[in-house]
C-alpha cells in the first residue's frame, strides 16, 4: 500500500493528532486566557474529523496495511466516538479551573484518538497501544479535573489499576502471539488466524491462557465485576463532567477490543469461555444494580449503574453475530447500538450533576438533589429523560437498546446448544431492569418530589445546557426513529460476519510449542 493512501485513510485520526498537538501549543500562548477559545478549538477539531469521516462514508471493502484494518466497524466507531466526543467537550467546557485547559482539551482528543485507533487495529500490538492511548490521558484528566484531594486520590487508584490491567493484557497478548505465531488479529485475505487446534477444533491451552488474560485485562477497561472496584471511587473523585467521559470512552474501546478478540476466533467460543462470560455478565449487572440500590451518593450510584450497563452489553457480546444480521438478531449490532445510546444517556446524567452547584462544590448525595426541579425545570426534565433511558423505559432509546439485546437472545434457534442459557441470561437482564428502577426512580424522585429549604443552584454555562439538551433529545429521537442508528450498527458488523463465516478457513494452526512446525502463509 502506498503511504499516501494510508494517510488519507487515517485522515480523521491524523486530524485529531495534529489538533491535539496544536492545542497543547495554543494552551501555552496568550490565546488560552480567553475562556472559551481552547474548548471551541477542540470542538472544531472534532467536527473536522467527523466531517471527514462522514463524507468519506463507509469504506467500500476494507483497507488493510501496517497492522490496521479500516472496516465498516471502524467507520461506525469513528463517528459515534467523535459525535459523543463533541458532547463531552461541550459538557467539559468550563473545566478545569486552572490554567491547564490546553492540556485538558488535548488529552480528551488524544483519548478519543485511542478509541479510533482501537477500532482500526488489526494487530495485537496496535490494539494494545491504542487502548493505552485511551487510558493514559484519562489518568491525567482526573487529576486535572478539580482541585480536590479526592481527585488526586482517584487518579492514583485509576492509574495503578489501569496499569495493572494493561500489564495483564500484555501478558495475555503474549500468549496469543505464542499460540498463533503472529501478532495479526485477523487475516485480511480470507479466514482468521485461528487459535484453535486442528485436531480437536478447540482452543489450545496456550491460546486459552492468553484468551483468559486478555479477557481479564479488557474486563478492567469495561468495568466488569470483579474488575470494577476502581469505578465507584474514581467516579466519585473526578469532577462530574469528566466522569461522563470516563463511563463511556474506555468502555467503548474495551468493547471494541472484545469484539475483535471474539471475532479473532470466529465467535467459536469454547463452552468454558461461554459460561465464564455468562457468569461475568450475570454477576456484573446484578451486583452493579444491587449495590447501586445501597448508595446515597449520586455519583457512586451512577458508577454502579455504569457497571450494570457493562453487564447488559456483555450479554450482547456473548450472543454474538451468530444468529443473523441486524440488531434484532445480531448481538454485536445490538451491542454497538446500545453503547452509542449509553454514551449519550450516561453523559447526560453526569452533565445534570455538573449543572447544579452548592456552596461547597458539586452535588454529592441524593439529598443535595432535592427540589432541583423547581429550580430548573428544563434541566430536571432532561435528567428525567436520561435516567428513564438508563432504566430502559419507553419512550426513550434505552428501551430500544434493551429490546434489541433481548430479541437477539431470542433469535437463537432453540436447537442451538447455548440457546437456553442465553435466554435465561436475557431474562436475568430483564429482571435487573426492575432492580435498577429502584435507584433510578430515587434520583428522579429526589429531583421532583424532594423538598429542600436550600436547593442547589443551577450553575454551568450554556454549552453544558446544550450538551445536556442534545443528549436527552437524542434519547427521544432514537426511540421514534431507531432505524438510522440500528442500520449503521448493523452495517458495522459486516466485517465481523465475514470473519465469522470464514472462521474455519484456518490460516495457521499450531500450538505444539515444544517443537513448532510453522506453516505460515505470508500475509
Amino acid at each position, binding site marked *: 500500500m502506498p503511504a499516501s493512501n494510508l494517510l488519507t485513510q487515517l485522515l480523521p485520526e491524523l486530524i485529531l493528532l495534529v489538533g491535539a498537538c496544536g492545542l497543547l501549543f495554543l494552551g501555552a500562548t496568550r490565546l488560552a486566557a480567553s475562556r472559551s477559545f481552547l474548548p471551541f478549538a477542540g470542538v472544531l477539531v472534532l467536527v473536522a474529523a467527523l466531517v471527514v469521516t462522514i463524507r468519506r462514508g463507509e469504506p467500500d471493502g476494507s483497507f488493510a496495511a501496517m497492522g490496521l484494518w479500516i472496516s465498516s466497524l471502524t467507520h461506525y466507531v469513528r463517528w459515534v466516538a467523535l459525535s459523543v466526543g463533541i458532547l463531552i467537550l461541550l459538557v467539559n467546557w468550563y473545566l478545569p479551573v486552572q490554567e491547564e485547559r490546553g492540556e485538558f482539551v488535548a488529552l480528551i482528543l488524544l483519548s478519543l484518538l485511542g478509541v479510533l485507533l482501537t477500532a482500526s487495529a488489526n494487530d495485537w500490538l496496535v490494539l494494545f497501544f491504542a487502548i493505552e492511548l485511551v487510558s493514559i490521558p484519562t489518568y491525567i484528566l482526573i487529576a486535572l479535573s478539580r482541585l480536590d484531594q*479526592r481527585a488526586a486520590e482517584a487518579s492514583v487508584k485509576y492509574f495503578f489499576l489501569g496499569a495493572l490491567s494493561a*500489564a495483564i493484557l500484555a501478558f495475555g497478548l503474549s500468549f496469543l502471539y505464542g499460540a498463533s505465531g503472529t501478532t495479526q488479529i485477523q487475516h485480511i485475505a480470507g479466514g482468521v488466524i485461528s487459535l484453535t487446534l486442528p485436531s480437536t477444533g478447540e482452543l489450545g491451552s496456550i491460546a486459552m491462557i492468553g484468551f483468559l488474560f486478555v479477557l481479564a485485562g479488557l474486563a478492567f477497561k469495561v468495568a466488569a465485576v470483579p474488575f470494577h472496584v476502581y469505578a465507584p471511587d474514581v467516579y466519585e473523585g473526578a469532577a462530574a463532567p469528566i466522569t461522563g467521559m470516563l463511563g463511556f470512552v474506555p468502555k467503548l474501546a474495551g468493547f471494541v477490543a472484545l469484539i475483535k478478540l471474539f471475532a479473532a476466533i470466529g465467535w467459536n467460543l469454547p463452552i468454558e469461555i461461554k459460561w465464564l462470560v455468562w457468569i461475568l455478565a450475570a454477576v456484573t449487572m446484578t451486583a452493579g444494580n444491587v449495590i447501586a440500590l445501597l448508595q446515597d451518593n449520586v455519583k457512586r450510584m451512577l458508577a454502579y449503574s455504569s457497571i450494570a450497563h457493562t453487564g447488559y452489553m456483555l450479554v450482547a457480546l456473548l450472543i454474538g453475530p451468530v444468529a443473523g444480521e441486524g440488531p434484532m438478531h445480531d448481538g454485536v449490532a445490538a451491542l454497538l447500538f446500545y453503547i452509542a445510546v449509553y454514551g449519550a444517556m450516561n453523559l447526560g446524567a453526569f452533565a445534570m450533576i455538573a449543572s447544579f452547584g452548592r456552596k461547597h462544590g458539586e452535588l454529592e448525595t441524593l439529598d443535595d438533589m432535592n427540589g432541583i426541579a423547581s429550580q430548573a425545570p428544563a434541566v430536571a426534565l432532561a435528567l428525567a429523560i436520561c435516567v428513564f433511558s438508563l432504566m430502559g423505559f419507553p419512550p426513550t432509546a434505552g428501551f430500544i437498546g434493551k429490546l434489541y439485546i433481548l430479541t437477539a437472545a431470542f433469535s437463537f434457534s432453540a436447537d442451538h446448544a447455548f440457546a437456553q442459557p442465553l435466554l435465561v441470561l436475557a431474562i436475568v437482564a430483564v429482571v435487573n431492569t426492575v432492580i435498577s428502577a429502584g435507584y433510578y426512580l430515587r434520583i428522579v424522585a429526589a429531583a421532583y418530589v424532594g423538598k429542600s429549604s436550600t436547593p442547589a443552584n443551577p450553575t454551568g454555562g450554556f454549552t453544558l445546557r446544550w450538551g445536556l439538551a442534545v443528549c436527552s433529545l437524542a434519547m427521544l429521537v432514537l426511540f421514534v426513529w431507531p432505524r438510522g442508528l440500528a442500520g449503521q450498527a448493523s452495517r458495522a458488523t459486516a466485517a465481523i460476519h465475514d470473519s465469522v463465516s470464514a472462521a474455519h478457513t484456518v490460516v495457521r494452526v499450531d500450538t505444539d510449542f515444544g517443537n513448532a512446525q510453522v506453516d505460515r502463509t505470508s500475509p
Partner: protein
Amino acid sequence: MLTIGLTHYLIVAAVLFCTGLFTMITKRNAIGILIGVELVLNSANVNLVAFDRYLGSERMDGQIVALFAIVLAAAEAALAVGICINVYKNLATIDVDSASQLQG
C-alpha cells in the same frame, strides 16, 4: 542434560507475573506498586521474546512488540511519578493507605 526450552521461559515469566502481582498487593508505597506493575509488564516481554525465539519468526514480531512494551513501561513510569508528585502535594505522603477519602 537439561535443555532450556520454551517451557522454562514461560515458567520464568509466570513467576515474574506472580511476583509483580504480589508486590502490587502488598506494597503500600506508590513507587513499590509501580515496580510491581513493571514486573508484570516484563513477564509479558519475556514471553514475547521466548515465543519469538522458539517459534522462529522471520519477522521477529515478538521482539518488536517487546521493545514497544519497554517504551510503554518507561512512559508509564514517567506518568506514575507525575501522579505521585501530585498526590504528595496534596497529602504530603505517597503511602497509598493514607489516600482513603473515597470509601472503597
